[in-house]
């Protein structure tokens, strides 16, 4: 088993708002191994961004972390002082934001913005910082870095800016890189390039990556493991193959069912009925997904499902996995995909 880099244990985060206390993250646990890419998927408001911002301790002022531990190589980040935390940000854990058009300071040359990330954590001279900056620009594929480092953000395209943002995040070779929907604001061709770049870089610099997205197509491309979040909780987590071909949670079924594939020949795409619950106090009891779930059982109304183990790497929180539960019938597309997957696995094993 690879070394565990980051471990989030039972994290709960809430926001105080005028409408009351909102429980955005409710007991999230996961771990991230060395050099691994974990994708966190879910609808808007499912708590994926809040979870990752908690790791950076960059939450809005009205947020509070109610419980949990965030262990980076065994150190609980939640116990660090603000000053100690600043040494972690950008140095051991770095983050790439969603919109590259607004992530860079418009009045500062991009070279300096990258150098800044270096000199904040490394005691190096100007010249050294500069050569590191040029190296980073080359690494992310910005051509003619000498000249371009003296330009301002408005002189770059969206894709190039995201490359610069990634270069900045990698400045101190962080142990963990959090990419919060890094391709959402880009057009499709750019998305593919940025994803290839991230995969390529991960091999070169060997950092662990948490990839937040709501695009399952992107997930299939980058992730080793996938965590599916719903209403502030992880509802299913497993290896990418397990999530894509052998999903166990009805919400994951819904997500996959709603994703178009090359052999989709339906006149319209499937959508999960209803919308996610608001997590304002009091949070409804039972399974938060039950009202939208065609497979919901009576027990879902009252009791939240615990995690059931599917395999050593695969867990899902649904009562359907309880031995007493009736057998659910998968949507045909998913069932077919699962059969093919199981056959392939059998062949490979045999």
């Amino acid at each position, binding site marked *: 088993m690879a070394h565990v880099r980051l471990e989030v244990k039972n994290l709960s985060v809430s926001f105080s708002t005028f409408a009351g206390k909102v429980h955005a993250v409710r007991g999230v646990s996961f771990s991230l191994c060395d050099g691994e890419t974990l994708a966190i998927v879910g609808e808007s408001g499912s708590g994926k961004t809040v979870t990752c911002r908690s790791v*950076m301790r960059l939450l809005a002022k009205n947020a509070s972390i109610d419980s949990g531990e965030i262990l980076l190589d065994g150190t609980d980040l939640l116990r660090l002082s603000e000053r100690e935390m600043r*040494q972690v940000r*950008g140095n051991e854990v770095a*983050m790439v934001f969603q919109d590259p058009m607004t*992530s860079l300071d418009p009045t500062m040359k991009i070279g300096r913005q990258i150098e800044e*990330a270096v000199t*904040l954590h490394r005691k190096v001279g100007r010249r050294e910082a500069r050569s590191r900056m040029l190296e980073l620009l080359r690494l992310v594929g910005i051509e003619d870095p000498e000249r371009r480092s003296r330009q301002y953000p408005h002189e770059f395209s969206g894709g190039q800016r995201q490359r610069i943002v990634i270069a900045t995040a990698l400045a101190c070779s962080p142990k963990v890189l959090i990419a919060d929907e890094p391709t959402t604001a880009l057009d499709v061709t750019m998305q593919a390039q940025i994803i290839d770049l991230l995969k390529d870089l991960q091999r070169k610099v060997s950092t662990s990556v948490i990839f937040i997205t709501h695009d399952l197509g992107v997930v299939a491309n980058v992730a080793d493991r996938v965590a599916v979040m719903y209403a502030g909780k992880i509802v299913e987590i497993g290896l990418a193959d397990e999530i894509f071909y052998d999903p166990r949670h009805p919400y994951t079924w819904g997500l996959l069912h709603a994703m178009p594939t090359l052999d989709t020949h339906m006149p319209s795409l499937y959508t999960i009925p209803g919308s996610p619950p608001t997590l304002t106090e009091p949070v409804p009891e039972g399974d938060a997904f039950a009202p939208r779930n065609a497979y919901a059982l009576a027990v879902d109304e009252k009791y939240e499902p615990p995690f059931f183990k599917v395999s050593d790497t695969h867990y899902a929180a649904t009562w359907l996995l309880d031995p007493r539960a009736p057998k659910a019938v998968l949507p045909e597309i998913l069932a077919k995909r699962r059969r093919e997957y199981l056959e392939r696995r059998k062949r490979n094993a045999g």
Partner: protein
Amino acid sequence: MKNRWLRFLGRRLLYMALTLWIIVTITFLLMSFLPGTPYNNQDKLTAAQLQVLNQKYGLNQPVWQRYLTYLNNILHGDFGISLQFSDQKVTTLLGNRVGVSMQLGIQAAVFGTVVGIVLGTIAAMKHNTWIDTFCSLFAIVGRSAPNFVVAVLLQFVFAVTLGVLPIGLWNEGFRSTVLPTLALSISPMADSARFIRTEMLEVLNSDYIEFARAKGMSELHLVVFHGLRNALIPLITILGPITVSLMTGSLVVENIFAVPGIGEQFTKSVLTNDYYTIMAMTILFSALLVVVIFLTDILYQIIDPRVRIGGDRS
């Protein structure tokens, strides 16, 4: 790049000259409609006497002819003589006073905006705390309290009660400038504090600040290196006119402190139909404004790379 700068400069200088010419023309024409004469005993003068005087000062000519003569004169640097003090040239009359007003104005503008920027920044950093409330309160009071009230208050505290600074006049060098400068600086201070607070709040909420925070930067570092520069850009626009109006003197403040500045001269010249002084004052004020606006644009080029002249226009 260099070429583009030259072309920019050339075009701007031409526009500036054009603007000034239009202002001179309009003012000259409007002034010719002013009732009365520049002579302070005009009621006792007979028609014949008036004519003699008008002839002496060239005021009997038609307006267009006077206008052309005047234009020709100022192009040769001759701004005429003051009609209030018949032996004094307008340039000497104003020259002695312009320096005083400008010194006060610049001191007040610099002091006021610097303190205002600091106050506004602190207020934004401590958003929604008592510090923020205090700064905002100060800005509202500073904006609404007339500067003569502030001036008298300053005199009372520092000159009368504490006795540390002169109450007025212009004979103790820098010490004489302190109180009038303070009185003048209250309003730009309040303005820029309010302005910077609003801008800074917006900037501090932007993605690039959050990204810089994610690099591990401290709040102070953030504000100084990324916040201020971005928050200052819009302030530059209002800074120019503030400075000019301060430089051309405040009649009230100069009067209260008995400072021999330009402000007093401005009203006096209008009241006495002192045509050439009015013209010179107008030209001075407009020239300053035009130059300051020009400098503001240059400053924009320096501080905001997006409006740079030499830059790519892609």
